[in-house]
């Protein structure tokens, strides 16, 4: 009698693992990885080097020479087309490079810019000057090694 009064519990199915929050957990994992991931992006200043032996002779009046010496000082040399006289400008602050180059390019857009950096100069100065040349929209930029320093076996 007592047995018949006992209420039957359950439906007879097996135990269930609740999976309702599985989606939330998965999306939490996605959001965690999305916010903590750092994507490696390659950024920088592009240049295309000339091939070896592909040196081209350019008349001096068509070149704007930008020199960086060992101390990181910048000098811009321009050859006057008519008188062939050299005009040398000492650069006090790096943004002056852009002003000078833009001024010369406005006079002659075909001007080639030769960036000559001493082996002992800091790389950051070279990048600063090269950045200014890029900002001045110069199309013809070449990196020229300093004569007498080539293959000198390490910075001087």
């Amino acid at each position, binding site marked *: 009698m007592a047995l018949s009064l006992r209420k039957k519990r359950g439906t007879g199915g097996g135990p269930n693992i609740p*999976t309702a929050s*599985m*989606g939330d*957990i*998965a*999306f939490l*994992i*996605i959001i965690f*990885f999305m916010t903590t991931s750092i994507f*490696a*992006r*390659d*950024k*920088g*200043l*592009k*240049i*295309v*080097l*000339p*091939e*070896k032996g592909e040196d081209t002779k350019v008349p001096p009046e068509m070149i704007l020479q930008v020199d*960086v010496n060992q101390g990181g000082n910048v000098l811009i040399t321009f050859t006057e087309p008519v008188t062939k006289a050299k005009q040398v400008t000492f650069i006090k*602050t*790096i*943004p002056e490079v852009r002003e000078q180059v833009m001024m010369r390019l406005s006079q002659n857009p075909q001007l080639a810019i030769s960036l000559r*950096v*001493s*082996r*002992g*100069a*800091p*790389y*950051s*100065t*070279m*990048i*600063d000057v*090269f*950045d*200014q040349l*890029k*900002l001045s929209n110069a199309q013809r930029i070449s*990196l020229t*090694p300093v004569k007498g*320093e*080539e293959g*000198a076996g*390490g*910075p*001087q």
Partner: protein
Amino acid sequence: MKRIAVRRETQSEIPTASTADIAFLLIIFFMVSTVFSTEQGLKVVLPQAESTERILKRRNVTSIWMDKTGRTTVNDNLVNPAVIASVMAEKVIENPEVVVSLQADQDVSYGYVTDVLEALKDARALKVNFATQQKTGGGG
């Protein structure tokens, strides 16, 4: 005879049973398609530049690392300019569109950089990218 209107309540539900499956599928997709950079490189502080551009095709990029003392590595191997030329020549044969990203420290002397550039010319790896960080704020 009077008709009794049976009121039926309909509840609309968005089925969410498959949300977990979709989410896990997304996780698996990203896990499979992500390529991890295995190259450790050297500890460098990149110079900053305003005209920094992004390289669009990453699969063409090969990095050369150079710390402030001039130590240079390619594929985590310490190399000298002669070795750079031979390693890069092989890479150019494999992929002529290779872009060399020079990850040089801002305090390194330019002499080390110019040696690497000469080695790249020897290897005919002519597309070079001086790795920089985007300069934020004005001033020079």
